């Protein structure tokens, strides 16, 4: 039985940076350590950079900077006996990402001659588990996602489940100095330890939800600076660790909207955060107190699954266009070029996309500006070719590029070449194209295995 939290208790959480590897000023971090934190926690991942990273097992963060951030955090944690918790290791949290991050930690331990107890928590789910769940109707798509099929399961390179607080609590209860977890519900990384000590689940998770982005929720916001949270029995307080930043009611409330569908109801593993009665109060010039967040547990435990699959291979070519006649007829010309390439039989199992910057390269079909109102005096065209092998993508890109370069469009007066290439070679191999194949809820809570290791010496 955990003791009741009284108004005299406080649990201090230091969040060094928005994403492990984004960096943070050492002065801010030291100020955080001076506040005697009970926990140093960091989120290391995101689905924002797209499906490639989960699918390929590569990280979107830089190895040198991940090592730099971890070295500072782990050494400070050991010196001050504060646990260091890392969620969604390597950017996407699948096994290759976890191994990548573990290898970095092992290097730090060897180089700095330190030794500590570490928990590693993989989040990969076997295809068999997902298939069984699918067959027993325990899987449903999130909004905008297609129903899951056996084929999609087979085609996915790695499938991860987003873990909640439970495995973190198990690891921390065993006295680990460092916890390195696969795909995690970001707030759980921050909330697990205080919740295990009896702090309110809703407040702990809500504080985690804000701290996982560190100083992004302060003003001026930054993804590369530290923030501090003080959890109390009936509230939590957010403080900046850099004198040039402030947490204001406005910045904190605005952050609550960020990347969410509905800021009042935030679903996660085991239940939902309900912010309907939540209040934000400015208590000093630079700190904000939050009250009233509730946690509504769900009846059936669900877990979010993520997976990515290869849909082809990509080659691209980048070129500029300055001819006003060509610019005025660009849509027709590109359509005719596509047709010409198709007629030569080079497009089977392949796709061409033209990204026309200066026209609708950013918004594509969502661009509301009618073509006749386009005023650009020059355009950039990115030819994107996707094939079912890299070789086919290369061929498709090359043929499309050469066809466009010398295409004799109507009324042409510039007959030497239609494109300005900034580079030789003009074509770039981009490798595998991934897409998110799984983004579903599974109504079975998997057992996340907590592996305890001794690192160093």
């Amino acid at each position, binding site marked *: 039985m955990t003791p009741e939290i009284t108004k005299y208790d406080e649990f201090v959480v230091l969040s060094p940076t928005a994403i492990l590897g984004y960096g943070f000023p050492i002065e801010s971090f030291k100020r955080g350590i001076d506040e005697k934190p009970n926990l140093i926690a960091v989120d290391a991942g995101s*689905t*924002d950079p797209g499906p490639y990273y989960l699918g390929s097992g590569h990280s979107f963060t830089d190895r040198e900077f991940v090592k730099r951030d971890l070295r500072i955090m782990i050494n400070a944690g050991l010196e001050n006996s504060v646990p260091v918790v890392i969620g969604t290791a390597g950017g996407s949290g699948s096994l290759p990402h976890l191994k990548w991050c573990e290898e970095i930690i092992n290097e730090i331990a060897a180089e700095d001659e330190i030794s500590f107890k570490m928990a590693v928590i993989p989040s990969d789910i076997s295809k068999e588990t997902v298939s069984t769940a699918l067959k027993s109707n325990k899987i449903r798509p999130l909004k905008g996602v297609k129903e899951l099929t056996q084929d999609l399961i087979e085609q996915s390179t790695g499938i991860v489940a987003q873990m909640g607080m439970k495995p973190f609590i198990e690891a921390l209860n065993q006295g680990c100095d460092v916890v390195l977890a696969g795909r995690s519900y970001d707030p759980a990384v921050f909330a697990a330890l205080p919740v295990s000590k009896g702090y309110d689940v809703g407040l702990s998770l809500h504080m985690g939800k804000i701290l996982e982005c560190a100083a992004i929720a302060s003003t001026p916001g930054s993804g590369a600076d530290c923030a501090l949270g003080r959890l109390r029995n009936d509230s939590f307080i957010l403080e900046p660790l850099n004198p040039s930043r402030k947490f204001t009611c406005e910045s904190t409330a605005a952050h609550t*909207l*960020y990347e969410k569908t509905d800021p009042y109801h935030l679903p996660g593993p085991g239940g939902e955060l309900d912010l309907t009665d939540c209040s934000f109060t400015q208590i000093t010039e630079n700190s904000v107190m939050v009250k009233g967040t509730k946690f509504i547990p769900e009846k059936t435990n669900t877990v979010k699954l993520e997976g990515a699959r290869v849909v082809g291979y990509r080659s691209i070519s980048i070129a500029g266009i300055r001819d006003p006649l060509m610019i005025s007829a660009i849509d027709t010309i590109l359509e005719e070029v596509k047709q010409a390439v198709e007629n030569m039989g080079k497009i089977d199992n392949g796709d061409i996309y033209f990204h026309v910057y200066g026209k609708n390269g*950013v*918004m594509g079909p969502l661009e509301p500006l009618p073509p006749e109102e386009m005023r650009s005096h020059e355009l950039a065209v990115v030819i994107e070719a996707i094939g079912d092998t890299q070789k086919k993508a290369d061929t498709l890109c090359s043929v499309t590029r050469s066809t466009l370069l010398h295409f004799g469009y109507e009324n042409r007066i510039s007959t030497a070449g239609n494109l300005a290439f900034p580079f030789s070679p003009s074509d770039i191999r981009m490798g595998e194209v991934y897409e998110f194949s799984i983004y579903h809820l599974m109504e079975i809570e998997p057992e996340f295995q907590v592996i305890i290791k001794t690192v160093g010496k």
Partner: protein
Amino acid sequence: MQMNITETARVIRSKNAGPFELTLDIIFKSEYWYKYFKNNNIINTKVISSLYGVNESDILGIIWFEPANAVKATMVRRISSGAAGETDIYGAQQHAPLLGITFDYSE
């Protein structure tokens, strides 16, 4: 008096809400403008669907969030983030059509 939304909003932005949804945020300069927009129903499903040329059924919701003096509209992404044909992986540059919202202001 004809006014543009940029005169009343401090933040206008777009971003993925997960890889399958795009969410638009408008944070007003003051509670006054928040209430004015809310009470006059200036931001609604119809307005967003016509600005972006998407079906009303693809708009998942318009949510007014008083603590931030903000309104948010979320829609299903045309394709999931990073799938073939993508133009904006993070969805961070899809807000521009909102900047053209004008309204007839009367106190």
